[in-house]
């Protein structure tokens, strides 16, 4: 126990700090059930994109096109939901994403185009196709616009855990604990309440996909074959695995996940398709996959982190102000570590940054809204730069494979 704590102090310490900072009234939004609920809703699309990235990269194909596939998910999801209802939107989103996955697979597997080049091209194509389809599909609507869809009606319905979180007409234990305003206990109750109340059925569907994805990749022959293709395609070929087919399936599943993530964004948070609403979440999903070391649980944790940052950004500028102390504290720890390791130059830089953030915190009431907006993106950068080095990626990811070649 102590060993894991020591090893992952960069994860646990910030959590502890957040809990402490949240005791100050001004920053209590850091740990309310509302914030955690929003965090989960924002984490799910990132997590789905990350899982998508995992399927693709496990089969050996780098998928920078996740963002584009997600854009397709938003457009097709919104269109089908508007025409037929939300669940059709989900289905259409998955299909739209998978179609673009197919294009990526044709490019990278059959024609062996550089994976990143193909991915970038996919992103460009998706943006163009979404814009075009939007103009064509809603041409005779009164609210016609090149960048938006009409509003989508129809509810999916949601679910709240009875007794613990007050589903139906039952009392809510977590809600009671949160309202007691006890230090730490109430914060934790807030976390649980946020995670178990007003979860839409789409969210539940998305969350169940996480264990299913893990089970598929690690406990079925199909999953073993898929992973082997990313590690050693020549070996898999010699054992009779159809390498090309596996890669095609992997990339298409990847597109399906990204498309679902896009449809989720439309149906859960905005109720409308808007150009640019993915706002780099496909890439953040990719980042959460890297952070999560290409494993479902890690991806879930990573996306939870980014979702939390996103939720703070949306819900409360004050809470983001509280994060300044957090950054300052973390920098202090890093500088102490650097002094112990006798890296004096880096340590002095860290201390200066630490003081800078502290001064900024003390001399301001809020963080400018322009800065609040990129909280999730800068979190992504910071997290990746402290985590990247210990990762193990699939061995042959990003390398073209031609049938019958010798390693």
């Amino acid at each position, binding site marked *: 126990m102590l060993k894991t704590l020591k090893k992952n102090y960069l994860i646990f310490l910030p959590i502890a700090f957040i809990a402490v900072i949240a005791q100050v009234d001004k920053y209590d939004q850091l740990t309310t059930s509302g914030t955690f609920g929003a965090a989960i809703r924002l984490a799910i699309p990132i997590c789905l994109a990350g899982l998508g990235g995992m399927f693709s990269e496990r089969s050996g194909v780098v998928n920078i096109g996740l963002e584009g596939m997600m854009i397709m998910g938003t457009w097709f999801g919104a269109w089908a939901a508007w025409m037929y209802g939300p669940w059709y939107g989900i289905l259409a989103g998955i299909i739209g994403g998978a179609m673009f996955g197919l294009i990526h697979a044709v490019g990278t597997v059959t024609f062996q185009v550089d994976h990143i080049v193909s991915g970038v091209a996919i992103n*460009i194509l998706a*943006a163009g196709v979404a814009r075009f389809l939007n103009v064509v599909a809603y*041409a005779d609507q009164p609210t016609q616009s090149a960048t938006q869809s009409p509003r989508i009606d129809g509810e999916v319905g949601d679910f709240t855990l009875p007794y613990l979180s007050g589903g139906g007409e039952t009392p809510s234990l977590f809600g009671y604990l949160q309202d007691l305003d006890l230090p730490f206990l109430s914060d934790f109750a807030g976390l649980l309440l946020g995670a178990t109340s007003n979860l839409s059925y789409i969210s539940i569907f998305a969350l169940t996909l996480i264990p299913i994805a893990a089970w598929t990749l690690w406990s079925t022959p199909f999953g073993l074959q898929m992973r082997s293709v990313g590690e050693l395609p020549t070996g898999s070929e010699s054992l009779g695995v159809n390498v090309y087919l596996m890669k095609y399936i992997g990339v298409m599943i990847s597109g399906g996940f990204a498309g679902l993530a896009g449809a989720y964004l439309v149906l859960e948070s905005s109720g409308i398709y808007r150009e640019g609403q993915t706002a780099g979440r496909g890439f953040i999903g990719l980042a959460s996959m890297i952070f999560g070391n290409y494993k479902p649980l890690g991806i879930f944790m990573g996306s939870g982190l980014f979702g939390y940052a996103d939720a703070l950004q949306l819900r409360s500028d004050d809470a983001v102000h509280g994060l300044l102390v957090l950054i300052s504290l973390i920098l202090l720890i890093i500088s102490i570590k650097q002094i112990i390791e006798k890296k004096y130059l880096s340590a002095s830089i860290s201390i200066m940054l630490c003081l800078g953030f502290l001064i900024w915190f003390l001399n301001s009431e809020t963080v400018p809204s322009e800065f609040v907006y990129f909280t999730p*993106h800068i979190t992504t*950068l910071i997290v990746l730069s402290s985590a990247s*080095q210990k990762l193990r990626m699939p061995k042959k990811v990003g390398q073209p494979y031609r049938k019958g070649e010798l390693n």
Partner: protein
Amino acid sequence: MKLSLRFTSLLAPVFALIVAFGLSTLMLYLIGEDPIETFKIMYDYGKSGKSIVSILNRSVPLYISAVAVAVGFKMGLFNIGVESQYLMGSLLSAALGAAVALPSILHISLIIFVAILSSALWAAIAGYLKVKKGVHEVISTIMLNYIGTGIIAYLLANIFFEKVELSTTAPQTDLLPESARIPSLNAFLGIEDLPNLHGFIIGAVLVGILYYWIVWKTSLGFDLRATGSSPMAAKFSGANPGKLTIFAMMISGGFAGLIGIAPLTGYFFKYTTDFPSGLGFAGITVALLGRNHPIGMAFGAILLSFLERSAQILDLYDVPKEIEKIMQAVIVLSVVVAYEVVKRYVTNRQIKEASKVVSNA
């Protein structure tokens, strides 16, 4: 042999264009428009004198953006962050340019210098993160795009612009003085009856030459290309990949700084919230299209500008002008695939010819 190789690699873009036109025709047909009529309208509008000037003006920043992306590509680096790099450079150089008074040549040089420097430093962050922290540059540059957008919005609204109570003016920097503006070429070329052809088009040509010189004629360029095609071999030949990565990022960012010069000193004269954006992403398209070749990219930039300009007329004919976005994207995708197919074909033929020589000997 050499000549026929060149010839076959020309086939790729031609093939891609045919595919793109084919697909767009299909698309137009599906939505019930007459494809041939549409293309004819676009072509007729695009070849007028006014349009040609507009196309050339558009292609200048586009070309420079493509060069910025291509420098990275040459070393196997994907600088997706050109977007925020050039906006950062444009904002800072616009603010500084409006604040000083200097003789014209010095003034323009100062603006260019500041733009290059600030964009290069912003790009260097991604290089540093890649080398020291192992963060892939695609992710870091994309995140830096969002972060840069936020910082720019903050700087523009709070530092470089004084808010006036009850005024609805959008945030903007002060206007550049006359001495900081690059004149148009119209008087020089004797085309006074047409819209202004911006003078920085000469700058774009110089950028192309500079790019060619750096990448193909200097030892730095050799190291860059060597690292791009075979990192291991380059390392053994004595190149320092870490340093090179940061350096390549900075060169790429430096070129990116020049993207904003033409709009800034040519027709905007200030940085506002509607300063042209999206050029960084369009540059990726052009670089892929022109295969990182200085002349290929020039054709790519002009082609894209032509499509963009000529699509403007379609609104009048009730054809969705967004068809142009699809054409662009399809051209890129098919050009990428076509190059790969041609490359494979050429390699196969070389292998066959080589084995023929061997068996004859």
